[in-house]
């Protein structure tokens, strides 16, 4: 049975990217709303 580490890292890598992107999106939206003179 080959190990297929490539698949494992691809799966975890994509998950880290997706979760990180969502986290950053939330942080940016919160900042733009809470900051002084927050637009919207």
């Amino acid at each position: 049975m080959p190990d297929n580490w490539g698949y494992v890292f691809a799966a975890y890598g994509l998950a880290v990217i997706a979760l990180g992107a969502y986290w950053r999106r939330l942080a940016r939206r919160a900042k733009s709303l809470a900051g002084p003179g927050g637009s919207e």
Partner: protein
Amino acid sequence: MTRALGWLAALALVIGLGAAFGYAPREAVQGNVQRIMYLHVPAVLTAYLAFALVFAGSLGYLFTRRLGWDRLAVAAAEPGVLFTGLTIVSGSIWGKPTWGTWWTWDARLTSTAVLFLVYVGYLLLRGMVDEPDRRARYAAVVGILGAANIPIVHFSVKWWRALHQPSTILGPEPSPIAAPIALTLLVNWIAFTLLFLYFLARRAEIARLEESHAG
């Protein structure tokens, strides 16, 4: 409070990741590729939790007309869609080397895909309405129909992929699963749930700020 939750989630994720790669053994049949399970299964469980909260928020809003319920619904729906997407992608990556295909119209895969599409539609609808009360009402109606639809979708796809043939029904029994693997799953499940709760709190806070800016 939210900040503490965030750090707790981060800590749990690090432990979970360590367990998935350091503690859990190499699976006997599948080899190391089975480690995708520690991402795949917690993600789907978290998504189910999220959609249950969307349903609760939708019902709560229609009963009380308090926007707090609507904030719960949207704050759960966004990460819910994210985790469903992760489930599908990680499952696909797991499926390729083990089953030999990225995607197959299997009952469970199909119903997860439908779930994803329903809640993407839910979020799209929310994006098209600006007034908070009207948005909350429409979204709640779609959220309730979506939730009531889940069992129907489940059975329709299950029967769709079945071949009719009389056969002996074998009763379900607990699947044998090695203790270290089960424990690693549990740790990762807790970590994902914490992360989801952190996202939920952040997103609900953003929704609250948006309403106070608009109003």
